[in-house]
């Protein structure tokens, strides 16, 4: 047990199995206020499962989960909504919490879908729906945001803008974020802590530490390393006081 007030969720050797098949095991991580923790790993490596363990969706788990907040915003990877329900975007926004109209408008404006407020949820495109999902998660001003591939199906410019937004929200709300992303670019530039999964924790640490790890390279290949080196190259110069660029 720790007395750190900033911790929102803590997993200790957590794992989940269906009968004898482990979906993920031995995961230890903690999410703190104002920090972004990212899960990376190939398909089927247990990223979403880990998120669901942290959220308390899976209850019969191995290991321990300590959750210190109930103000949670969740953007699931897959969401199957029964379209026989008459449900407008504004009804969906207040699904788990009653919000003031201005809070709904603000969140929908931030993700660029305010014009869809009165539309039926079933009539939205994939990208539009994804933006509504993000708006819903942030509108309740949560302590903890869990984003499972939040920008899937969003157009390229929107993707960048949404990631910027997510970063901004972390700073403004001082909330903790658990992010699952395939976009290593984003992971490397915006994350405080990376956990690389492949059924278990391969490696974890700062983005730089993880990128240097051999297991990470083995999982993602040389290309992933290239992304990192490009990222590193942004820092291969310094700006002098005169505004000139000076090579190291």
């Amino acid at each position, binding site marked *: 047990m720790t007395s750190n007030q900033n911790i929102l969720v803590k997993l200790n050797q957590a794992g989940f199995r269906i009968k004898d098949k482990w979906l993920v095991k031995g995961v230890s991580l903690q999410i703190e206020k104002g920090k972004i923790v990212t899960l990376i790993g190939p398909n089927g490596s247990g990223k979403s499962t880990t998120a*669901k363990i942290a*959220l*308390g*969706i899976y209850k019969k788990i191995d290991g321990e989960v300590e959750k210190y907040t*109930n103000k*949670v*915003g*969740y953007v*699931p990877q897959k*969401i*199957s*909504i*029964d379209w*026989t*329900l*008459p*449900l*407008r975007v504004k*009804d*969906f926004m207040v*699904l*788990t*919490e009653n919000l003031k109209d201005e809070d709904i408008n603000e969140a929908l404006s931030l993700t660029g879908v305010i014009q869809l407020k009165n539309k*039926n949820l079933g009539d939205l495109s994939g990208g539009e729906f994804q933006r509504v999902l993000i708006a819903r998660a942030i509108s*309740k001003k949560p302590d903890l945001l*869990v984003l499972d591939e939040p920008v899937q199906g969003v157009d390229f410019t929107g993707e960048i803008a949404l990631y910027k937004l997510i970063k901004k929200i972390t700073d403004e709300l001082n909330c903790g974020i658990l992010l699952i992303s395939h976009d290593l670019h984003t992971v490397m530039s915006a994350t405080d802590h990376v956990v690389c999964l492949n059924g278990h924790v391969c490696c974890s640490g700062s983005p730089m530490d993880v990128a240097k790890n051999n297991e990470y390279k083995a999982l993602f290949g040389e290309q992933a390393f290239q992304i990192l080196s490009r990222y590193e190259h942004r820092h291969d110069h310094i700006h002098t006081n005169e505004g000139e660029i000076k090579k190291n």
Partner: protein
Amino acid sequence: MLDDFFIRALIAGLGIAIVTGPLGCFVIWRRLSYFGDTLAHSALLGVTLAYTLEFNIAFSVFIISSLIALILIQLQKRTNLPGDALLGLLAHSSLAVGLVVIGFLTFIRFDIMGLLFGDILAVTVDDILIIWIGGPLILLVLKLIWKPLFASTVNYELAEAEGLNPDRAKAIFTILMAGIIAISIKMVGLLLITGMLIIPAAMARNISSSPQSMVIYSILGGLLSVVLGLFTSLEFNTSSGPSIIAASLFLFILSLLNIKQSIKLKN
């Protein structure tokens, strides 16, 4: 003018419609119509029990229906049979057992038709009291669990992740279903209660764009069905249950016409 028994039936029917409206919406949204049927079929067993032990019918039906719901949950956990097979098993076996028990109770004269299809002549002042106390109670509880129940109807994992406790809401909803069946069985009859739950709600779905408006239209549709159905029942001397359900079917068909018109307008 109007007979006392008719006024009693009207008051009872309207009380039932106010409750079946919102519950029926959830039955449709959560795809529970066969589950409602199962609980209703098991109600016969509750009725026979009430006669044998000289017990209040509504109370006894409530107990048996809740019990069947519990057994269903246990069977779902312990067997690999699909849900609809389990529901069919419970529905028909409890109906059969109920009918067999009736066969043994030769000393009591049963109005089987009344049990199956409802009987407005049978509505007493006590029944009205049970409906108008039990009904608002069901609505109150439904209002309290609305948020978690509705959220988990839309998406279970979202509700669970964001701390709403959907499992508890689902369990309470099951009890509410047993409750509405218990208070409406005399009036609507056990074969037709599910119709009372789903037809006004289905009608409402056709003409509403939000969950709230669907609930309101569903209640209004139910109230109108009761009034129309009971007057027909009085006029043509038909059973109350089928008359009410037929009236709700009529409203459902009207709502379909409305859809056709709006599609035409769009094009």
